[in-house]
């Protein structure tokens, strides 16, 4: 049976117990939603003692299903004020599954100043250790020190100085499989601040001497279906741009059709987008000893990750992704891919969300604080965040806080969270997702680009957003969405997988309703109890009032369409 670890930061105790029966068949985003609504008061202070921080595995953890070892991290968000689930690749979820741990619950606040580290050793013993020696140390150096102390057969989950300072844009970083770099981010919603408030600097998970064996209702049947699914995904992945290039390939589409945000979502095109596009990226990898087609977790067949080196061939960053490049690049009028890679490295190191941070920089440019396209000035603002200057601390509180402080009228946030790299006027279903997702403006909650008849038209946008938001809920409970995207022709197999693992009926509604609809409605109920209203399900005014210069389109989805979206 799966275990649950309860970490009480007030008593400084660790308790290991069997996972509650009600959560046995849940995982990932679905588990976070059900745990939160039953155990975390929706009106609690996100940085107070009643909030809890959850780390959990997916429904199919411990099995051979490709990409199933995503780590879901959940809490009440200090940024949005609502429920937050942010999931991340890397090695941690795989080792947690090997340890037989489905869920870690971090409760309470320390009664005195300090930092601690949760160490799960190779024999499965979990202890809190004093980590005050790591105070102020950022993620890359921290991980090096952890490797020196505990060896290399481990994964790390950690915060940098941003999390310690409780910045609302603070991420939680997870080490990559293979390299060990802390470059995978559970970035959104300020979960790093919650970890910082609890005085938890890092979780170190060692590879266990004895691997936990999953209990199957019918192991042979499970492996048969799993093999089919893995084959479908592997075959489709061979023609996937994310596998062949990386997520940066998305720029080749969004840059051409006006979906790529430019100059703080001005709606303009950025003719130089190829300077931060796939060909430039691939050339730089090839000439500098970088790599793509890397797996961030064991057993991944999509392998969309990469290792990006500087001009001298030295490691600069990894997991260098579209969102970071789009938002620090064209959205800040910057076309220097190496400068953007430096920004990515700094964000991973101090532990902040690149989406929130890049939008914050764009707002600073719009307000005249620094010039458009000035990469050095953008880097100096990141340094202020790292140094914790007065303005740096304001930057750490995100796009909305900075925009309001500087008197900026165009602040691209929903539920106080900055938008991902897709202009909602030119992919309107994505705009509907931004507006209505319980997570705030988030591309992974239901990106509709290319899925409705016309991205700038109104037809079918709400329908597609609704279907994708449900699908992303169950995908985020099972596996990486990039692998999941290839399973659409064989979705019913997931119902069969559930039955082979947990017993019962192979009905797909166990997935679509049990993990999908139920999760979405639970999250929305949580947010309502936290104080959110339908007015929180809106885009900022300027998307309704200003036309995209690239396409002539406005966000013309009316409020009624948004309000009835989840009337299932």
């Amino acid at each position, binding site marked *: 049976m799966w275990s649950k670890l309860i970490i009480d930061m007030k008593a400084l105790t660790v308790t290991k117990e069997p996972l509650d029966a009600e959560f046995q068949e849940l995982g990932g985003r679905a588990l976070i939603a059900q745990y939160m609504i039953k155990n975390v008061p929706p009106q609690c202070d996100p940085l107070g003692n009643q909030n809890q921080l959850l780390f959990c595995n997916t429904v199919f953890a411990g099995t051979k299903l490709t990409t199933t070892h995503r780590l879901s991290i959940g809490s009440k968000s200090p940024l949005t004020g609502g429920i937050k689930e942010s999931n991340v690749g890397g090695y941690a979820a795989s080792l947690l599954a090997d340890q037989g741990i489905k869920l870690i619950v971090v409760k309470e606040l320390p009664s005195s100043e300090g930092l601690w580290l949760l160490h799960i050793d190779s024999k499965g013993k979990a202890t809190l250790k004093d980590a005050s020696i790591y105070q102020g140390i950022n993620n890359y150096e921290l991980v090096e020190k952890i490797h020196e102390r505990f060896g290399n057969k481990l994964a790390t989950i950690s915060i940098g100085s941003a999390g310690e300072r409780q910045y609302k844009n603070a991420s939680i970083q997870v080490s990559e499989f293979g390299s060990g770099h802390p470059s995978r981010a559970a970035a959104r919603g300020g979960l790093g601040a919650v970890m910082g408030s609890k005085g938890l600097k890092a979780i170190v998970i060692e590879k266990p001497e004895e691997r936990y064996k999953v209990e199957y209702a019918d192991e042979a049947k499970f492996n048969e279906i799993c093999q089919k699914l893995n084959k479908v995904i592997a075959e489709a992945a061979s023609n996937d741009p994310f596998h062949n290039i990386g997520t940066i390939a*998305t720029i*080749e*589409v969004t840059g051409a059709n006006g979906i790529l945000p430019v100059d703080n979502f001005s709606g303009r095109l950025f003719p130089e987008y*190829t300077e931060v596009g796939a*060909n430039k990226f*691939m050339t730089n990898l090839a000439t500098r000893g970088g790599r793509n087609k890397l797996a961030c977790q064991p057993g991944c067949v999509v392998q969309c990750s990469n290792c990006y080196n500087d001009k001298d061939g030295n490691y600069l960053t990894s997991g260098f992704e579209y969102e970071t490049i789009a938002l620090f690049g064209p959205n800040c009028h910057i076309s220097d891919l190496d400068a953007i890679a430096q920004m990515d490295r700094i964000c991973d190191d101090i532990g902040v969300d690149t989406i929130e941070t890049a939008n914050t920089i764009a707002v600073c440019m719009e307000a005249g604080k620094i010039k458009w396209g000035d990469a050095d000035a953008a880097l100096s603002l990141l340094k202020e965040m790292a140094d914790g200057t007065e303005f740096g601390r304001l930057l750490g509180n995100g796009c909305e806080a900075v925009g309001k402080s500087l008197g900026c009228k165009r602040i691209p946030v929903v539920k106080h969270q900055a938008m991902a790299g897709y202009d909602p006027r030119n992919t309107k279903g994505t705009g509907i997702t931004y507006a209505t997702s319980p997570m705030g403006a988030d591309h992974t909650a239901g990106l509709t680009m*290319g899925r409705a008849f016309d991205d700038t038209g109104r037809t079918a946008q709400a329908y597609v957003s609704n279907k994708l938001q449900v699908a992303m809920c169950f995908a985020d409970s099972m596996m990486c969405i990039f692998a999941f995207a290839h399973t659409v022709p064989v979705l019913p197999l997931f119902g069969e997988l559930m039955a082979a693992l947990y017993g019962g009926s192979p009905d797909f509604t166990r997935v679509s309703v049990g993990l999908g609809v139920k999760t979405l409605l639970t999250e929305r109920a949580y947010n309502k109890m936290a104080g959110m209203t339908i007015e929180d399900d809106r885009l900022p005014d300027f998307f309704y009032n200003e036309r995209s210069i690239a396409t002539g389109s406005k966000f013309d989805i009316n409020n009624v369409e948004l309000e009835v979206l989840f009337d299932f």
Partner: protein
Amino acid sequence: MVTVNNKKIEFYNGMTVADALKAAGEVPDAIVLVMVDGKILPHNKFDVELVAENTQIKLLPLITGG
């Protein structure tokens, strides 16, 4: 010959990427990336980019955003 995904197309002088795609029966929509000999070619260049003998063209449909 020119290869479009795994399909072999007869090459002729003056053949453009658009011609090769048409001959292979491919009509890539806006979210399909077209890679010509390992480089992504923007859709607005299909009509003007000439292919050479043995050119490899690969269609990479974008399944989701990153």
